[in-house]
């Protein structure tokens, strides 16, 4: 599933002649304020960069649900298991198909259920900064 998310961060260099190579080509961000999607927890999914559109200041990402679910390990009486230090024990199991669909729906609703401006507000992230001359 692909989603389009507004960008935050600071662009330090822009080389349009390199855009043709895809990915994040042609764009160099500030390592201390990298170019990235606004900080919103999409839940138990992973994502990968597909493309960056500087005109709309958005990033298209490919979202994939997690294959696993980590949950508290309970005994037969429903009580939480703990280790020797008293920390709760967890177990990881494969996510079911229904759960995976739920992960994707959650991420989709988080992004597509809001306008671009709302996503900036929710994340409290500033808009993308392009301080260099020549960066459109």
């Amino acid at each position: 599933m692909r989603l389009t998310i507004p960008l935050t961060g600071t662009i330090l260099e822009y080389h349009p002649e390199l855009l043709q190579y895809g990915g994040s080509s042609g764009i160099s961000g500030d390592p201390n304020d990298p170019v990235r999607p606004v900080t919103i927890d999409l839940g138990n999914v992973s994502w990968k960069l597909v493309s960056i559109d500087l005109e709309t200041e958005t990033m298209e990402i490919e979202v994939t649900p997690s294959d696993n679910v980590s949950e508290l390990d309970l005994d037969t009486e429903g009580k939480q298991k703990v280790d020797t230090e008293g920390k709760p024990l967890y177990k990881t199991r494969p996510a079911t198909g229904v759960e995976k669909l739920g992960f994707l729906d959650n991420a989709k609703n988080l992004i597509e259920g809001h306008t671009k401006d709302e996503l900036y507000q929710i994340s409290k992230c500033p808009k993308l900064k392009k301080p260099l001359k020549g960066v459109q």
Partner: protein
Amino acid sequence: MSPVAISGVDKQGVYVNGVQVKQALDPANETVNKGVYDPTTLSAVDGDLAVGNIEQGVTIFGKLGTVVPMDVSDANAAVGDVKDPKTFYSVAAPRKTGTMPTVAITAANDDYPAGYHAGNVGGLDAIDADLAPGNIKDGVTIFGKLGTYAQTITHDVQDSDVDSAATTLSRQLDYEVTSYIAAGADGVFLTLTINCAQATVLEAAYFVNACGDGAGANNLKLQMYIDGVAQGESANLTASGVFHLFYDTGYGSVASGNRIVYLNCHSYEASDNSRAFISGGLFAAACRLV
């Protein structure tokens, strides 16, 4: 011959030396002693017995008052509304003393106490000098101060490597632990710096056996950046003690110069008490000429 008081003889109309002894009213008090008085009027005895001194509608010894009382029935102050120790009168006596405390905002905390504030013409930033645009996140406004502080990645770098000559750079990850990561912050596992002699496609990849730890172990995610641009983010790290394989790849063409790739853990947890473990893996970057 004037009447003469004789010790042991009262004034109850007795005659002394042939003269009747009489009483007189005293304006200093309201006592009317038993005895004989000359005729008079009360207003002649006490000039304050006048219509101008008596409330309208009230008659005292035939004097109908003309003073109109001030209507204060719409007053509504209570002692808690008046600053301590100022006094005031309200509809009912007696005089009252305000109990509203004088309070102030301090830089020590964000309390906003109820009470009277003297204010500060210098504004809130005169109370706490840290209330300044440079201390507030860029784009966020707090009490009218528009922040200019740029959000940064916390370079809690556990390790780093740089090779200005190599076109590939990789580091094996054995047992790596981030420091406890603050809520919403980042901890960098490893930074690789490659010197690109000319325009190149910079590729990077990692695969690690990782898990979270602490109160927000399930709200940690791995992120990879190439030349300051996010390439992707993992799903939630598995919880403490349950290591799981995470991996990602990314690429971008870059101009010549030193270019940085790094592997980072971001905390989406609300508390500060989380960190990430890597028990083994590899992080590599390579240049490919374009």
